[in-house]
């Protein structure tokens, strides 16, 4: 259409601002600190407003905002320190090793989660957050991240596994025993 109806900032706020907490929390757990998270969220909203005339009312505003968030995130990543290399995770042997159970502490402290999460490479961390915290479906994640569905599934699986491993590592550092000793191969539970 040649003429777009003029968007009103009140309409934009009504549609977009309810998702502000979710966007901030996701950004905060992906950015290195709160300042970067705030910059990221602010840019998301300003960019979303600029293209609000293209947003179709009635469609999924939350998914649209998250798509912008991850688009901006890719720009931010260039400024951030490189995330941990994930090449080794593509190694089949590594994948096999991930099938083994990971002892997860019975009591998981918030600071342990934050510490463990920070060690999970961001490519996996973002998929885990979208699935486990924001409860996006695999299909929504694929569209938001512009990834094939199979990649979303594998990243989620490996991301969760890495998080459990990191949690276990953090717990051992502080002398916290896992909930139960994992059964060893060939041993009945």
């Amino acid at each position, binding site marked *: 259409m040649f003429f777009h109806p003029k968007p009103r*900032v009140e309409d934009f706020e009504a549609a977009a601002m309810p998702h502000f907490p979710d966007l901030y929390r996701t950004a905060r757990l992906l950015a290195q600190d709160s300042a970067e998270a705030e910059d990221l969220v602010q840019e998301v909203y300003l960019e979303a*407003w600029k*293209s609000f005339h293209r947003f179709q009312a009635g469609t999924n505003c939350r998914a649209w905002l998250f798509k912008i968030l991850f688009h901006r995130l890719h720009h931010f990543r260039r400024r951030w320190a490189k995330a941990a290399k994930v090449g080794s995770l593509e190694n089949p042997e590594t994948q096999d090793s991930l*099938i083994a159970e990971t002892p997860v502490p019975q009591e998981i402290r918030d600071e342990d989660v934050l510490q463990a999460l920070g060690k999970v490479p961001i490519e996996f961390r973002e998929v885990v957050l979208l699935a486990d915290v924001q409860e996006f479906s695999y299909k929504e994640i694929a569209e938001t991240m512009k990834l094939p569905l199979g990649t979303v599934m594998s990243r989620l699986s490996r991301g969760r596994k890495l998080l459990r491993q990191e949690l276990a590592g953090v717990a051992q550092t502080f002398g916290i025993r896992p909930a139960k000793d994992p059964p060893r191969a060939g041993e009945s539970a």
Partner: protein
Amino acid sequence: MNGLNFNSEQCARIRRHLDAYLSNELLVETTSDVLRHLESCEACSRELEARTRVRDALRRVAVSQIPPEELRQSIERQLRKMQPGFFGGPQRLTWAVALLLIVVVLGGFATEQWIRVQRGRRIVASVLALGVSDHLQCAIKGHNYPNIANPPEKLRQQLGPQYAGLLEVVQQKLPGFEVLEAHICSVQGSPRKYVHFITRGHGTILSVILTRREGEQLPNGKWFVSGSSGSVGLYEAHLDGMNTAGFESKGYFGFVVSDLSPAITVQIATELAPPLKAALDAGTGSEARLDLDAVPFARGGSAGVSPAVARASCPGVPVL
């Protein structure tokens, strides 16, 4: 529950489904398989419980990240600053293009109208100039009229049977004017001829001139027509010190020309134009259509009036 099946092929298969199960992405049949296995496998149940515990801890940590209220307010402030004006915002370019198109279209239309009006005015001026030229040539410069009005019989004879009927119309519609002369003239160097009534009144000479349109046409529209009488549009102009009011019938242009004021000239034309037009359109009562070429003396006096009479009546211009 027992863990005897741990590491079995079935456990390995179920654990490959645990992530999708946790995300509620499994098909109903596969979900049933997983649930059946979990009922009988403590190790896999424990693994699921561990994964659920990690997920819940992650959600708890996420919720504990309190979004700063200052950030929300800052965003809202910036959004309101970016609220576009009527022609602003993301549609600014669209508005600019639309405005440009409107200006171009309106400008083009206005220019086309202006050109049309100017062309129309030139046509009106050139047509009315015929009457003024004829009046000046024959009546004023040529002084081609007697001081004492010619008798009506002579005038009708000079006009020929096809135009003689117009004499009565002119006499009736020009109260206060005396018809001194009426004849048919031609224009030097041109095949055009015209019927010329020379009258005197209000202390001046006034001409009523009729000439064939030869396919020419006066333009219509409020920009050109200065008034109307009945259904006859009137055009007026001031040329060479003369005021003229013109009209057109099916085949003729008619002019009233004098040095009287424009208002009087137009008023006279208002009275004359409708009956003259009706007479011209009807052929002045005769069945034959009016045709200057059919006027006997205009063809060299082959019938009715001799060429000598015609020349004498209009010495300033050659007569065919």
